[in-house]
């Protein structure tokens, strides 16, 4: 499956993707493929299965068209944040039933502490919690602006 990169990568710890399909599983696959291109993973099939299993503990959709998934995993070689946008929206089993237009995948190496992973996820959630911020991201697809927005995410 082709990954559409909206902008060339300038910061190797961040990327912005166009999520072209409707299903959550396909988006998770796209995230893993992108992380693989960033050489951030080993055993990508395990990471994909881990992301799918995480959804079975409860959807990672946080409501109002926003989802933040991720993995704290020994399969992650280097920290990476992937942000995907979808104009049409993805089915993500959200509690409010809303399709997801901005989905983020936070990958943290398993050698780091879980506390660091929680802080990274929390920082991403905080940076993108406003709907108008996410709308601006959907409208402009500006990686430099996104990088600035996520500058507080610990590495």
């Amino acid at each position: 499956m082709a990954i559409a990169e909206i902008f060339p990568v300038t910061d190797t710890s961040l990327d912005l993707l166009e999520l072209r399909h409707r299903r959550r599983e396909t988006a998770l696959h796209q995230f893993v493929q992108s992380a693989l291109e960033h050489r951030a993973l080993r055993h990508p099939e395990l990471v994909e299965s881990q992301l799918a299993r995480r959804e079975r503990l409860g959807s990672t959709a946080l409501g109002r068209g926003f989802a933040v998934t991720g993995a704290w995993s020994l399969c992650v070689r280097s920290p990476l944040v992937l942000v995907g946008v979808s104009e049409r929206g993805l089915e993500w089993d959200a509690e409010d039933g809303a399709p997801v237009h901005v989905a983020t995948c936070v990958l943290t190496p398993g050698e780091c502490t879980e506390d660091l992973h929680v802080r990274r996820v929390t920082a991403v959630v905080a940076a993108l919690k406003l709907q108008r911020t996410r709308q601006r991201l959907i409208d402009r697809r500006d990686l430099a602006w996104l990088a600035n927005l996520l500058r507080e995410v610990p590495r």
Partner: protein
Amino acid sequence: MSMARAFLELHELDQLLAQASDPARAARWRKVGYTLAAAPTLVRDRERLAVTLDRRWLGVYERCLGRYGKGLSTVRKRVCLGCRLTLPTSAAPPPGDAHLHVCEGCGRLLLWD
């Protein structure tokens, strides 16, 4: 599937299950905004995987899991990242070898980079 890869999957599953079953860890995730529930299907996945594993190695893994919260550790530049012990050159497996090894320092199963 190599035994090392199978133990890696077991480790990943155990860490995921602990996010929901450990009250302190689950509380942190709920504070971020997630709804976490017990997932009996994940427990079944774990049981299905565990029965395929060598019982002796599984015993080593589970002892360390109980003691340290992790039964597996990665090795970078011959250092066990679980206990920071520098492993002897002779401890490194030959390239391509997927066999399991145990850290002399902490006893965890080792995943060589």
